């Protein structure tokens, strides 16, 4: 049985979009922090890892209590994970970055790397260094295509990931463009000193940025533990690297750019695996990144801004 190329293409697109959604959710955290304080938060991958751990633990605990309604599981898990992971985001900003505000740019960067190493080891000590796994909570999906040939498979989980990603992104975009706090965020992003002079509490805005980024990373973490069902203290590194790439690809500092970058990266990996060789998926992803940066140094949707490097 050899499958139809069109059906295969559709399936690969679905695969890529699912992967891309996760990258996009994590990428937002990088891009928001960069947009406002011009710093790369290298501990963000670890924040996502904590979100995934909390997600897995809560889902397992709910299973023990006999909760089996999927929407209830999802709501409770998301709520708890966002709360816990958000507070980690806040604490990290408070302890590791705020005291360094105003120091040369390299200093908070080193601090971020320190936090990343700390969190990895902290989870390793608390939860053990081994893989923690869980069986899927939401199994099954739809199949399309000929009964005896290649069938497209779209799992409920993939749809759920896409829906939750779109909803989170919409809420975030509305928040940034419509709310008072969002306006303060945009003001800080344009000129932090000026915003401060005009009476905006910039420290609060920055803390909020970290919490929001962490909350979206928590959403990604919960979705990943539901979808793949495997977490360990080291998943933050690769995921963080990919999401950072997505953020740079889309134009770091730009929220729609992070979404676009994530989706493009996911699709690129998926198509490279499909039509070249699996070994080349990262090669293609990074060649794409270099290519885009050569033509548009600020990324696809980034504002030309030479001063912040």
């Amino acid at each position, binding site marked *: *049985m*050899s*499958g139809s190329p069109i059906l*295969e293409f559709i*399936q*690969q697109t679905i*695969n*890529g979009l*699912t*992967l891309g959604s996760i990258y996009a959710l994590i990428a937002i955290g990088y891009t928001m922090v960069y947009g406002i304080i011009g710093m790369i938060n290298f501990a963000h991958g670890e924040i996502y890892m904590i979100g995934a751990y909390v997600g897995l633990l809560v889902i397992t605990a709910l299973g023990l209590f006999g909760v089996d309604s999927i929407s209830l599981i999802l709501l409770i898990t998301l709520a708890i994970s966002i709360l816990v992971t958000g507070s980690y985001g806040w604490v990290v900003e408070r302890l590791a970055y705020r005291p360094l505000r105003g120091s040369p740019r390299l200093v908070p960067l080193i601090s971020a790397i320190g936090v990343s190493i700390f969190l990895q080891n902290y989870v*390793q000590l608390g939860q*053990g*260094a*081994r*893989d923690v*796994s869980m*069986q*899927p909570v939401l*199994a099954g*999906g739809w*199949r399309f295509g000929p009964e005896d040939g*290649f*069938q497209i*498979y779209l*799992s409920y989980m993939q749809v759920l990931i896409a829906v939750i990603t779109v909803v989170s992104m919409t809420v975030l975009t509305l928040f940034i463009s419509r709310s008072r706090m969002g306006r303060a965020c945009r003001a800080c992003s344009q000129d932090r000193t000026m915003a401060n002079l005009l009476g905006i509490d910039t420290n609060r805005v920055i803390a909020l940025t970290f919490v929001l980024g962490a909350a979206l990373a928590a959403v990604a973490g919960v979705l*990943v533990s539901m979808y*793949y*069902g*495997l977490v*360990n203290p*080291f*998943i933050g590194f*690769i995921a963080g690297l990919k999401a950072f790439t997505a953020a740079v690809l889309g134009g770091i500092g730009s929220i729609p750019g992070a979404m676009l970058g994530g989706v493009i990266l996911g699709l690129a*990996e*998926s*198509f490279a*695996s*499909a039509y070249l*060789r*699996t*070994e080349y*998926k*990262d090669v293609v992803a990074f060649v794409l990144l270099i290519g885009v940066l050569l033509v548009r140094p600020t990324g696809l949707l980034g504002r030309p801004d030479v001063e912040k490097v």
Partner: protein
Amino acid sequence: MNTFSRNILSAAVGAIVLVSGGVVYAADTVKIAIVGPITGPVAQYGDMQMIGAQMAVEQINAKGGINGKKLEAVLMDDVCEPKQAVAIANQIINDKIKFVDGHLCSGSTQPASKLYEEEGILMITPAATNPAITQQGYQMVFRTIGTDDQQGPTAGKYIVEKVKPKKLAIIHDKQQYGEGIAKEVKKTVEAAGIKPVLFEGVNKGQTDFSALITKMKKEGVDFVYYGGYHPELGLLLRQSREQGFDAKYMGPEGVGNKDISAIAGPASEGLLVTLPADFSTNPANADLVKAFKDKGQDPSGPFVMPSYSAVQIIADAIQGAKTEDPVKLAAYIHKNSFETPIGKVAFKDNGDLKEFEFVIFEWHADATKTPVK
């Protein structure tokens, strides 16, 4: 620094000197370093190695030790990382430990073995199967397990003779162990005229295999050989079944671990695994198996008995050769044969076992296994 903290500091330094001094001089023991992954994604295999080695140490000491000295196991964690393995090897050299039961992963064993050879430390790995480790012309390096060029052909022959797949895919994790064994399988099946439609590598730590699975599904692959460890294969199996790709999978002993069922769940049913024969079912080992079970340990893991044997061979050699000089012991081990739980073993000049048998098992969703044949 004020006087007070300076005093504290010197007291602390003094205490460290005292403690470490105590270890070096008070102990009249024969130390064996047991090196494997105690943490990290493949720590389960480290467990097997550790319980095997510790049991051997305990039983040898219970019989009075070696030449009146007690054996002492020093557990060390290399996380199966080549870099960490080199750091550990240096630590062993600095601590003047002369015997090593380890390492476990081929990728970490290879760089460490170079240091042991140079420093004259006797190393027996109970688990690293990559052939390259014993092809370096070393005298100090042995293993109590078969090699991929024995295991690969066993798997390959089974695929050719019993499975007869229409379309075979071979996937590996690009690591020394995984890719090495995948190549051996490829060589064997190609010699028999089966050309794999796919031979590709995934990343260690990769979680999403959907694109690869879609590709195999489209190609109509009906049998997949995976060279690597269980975390990746577990996810690969689970995502395959989800996408409705129901080819049969086969893997080497690196996937034969209870965790594969924890990760893949029902998808692990029917997985084929090449493993060393299950020494715990050998009647000659009944007492030993009972000793493990009394401690609540599982003796059936593939590396438990090889690790036990590694320690025992070192102890027997010291007793037989009446020396603790690792270089003389290596020569002694090359020349003699030993009665161990994995059978009567003798070594080739390169340190490989003269004989070692791999058996094919079928894995079940409840993490049990039954021999095929």
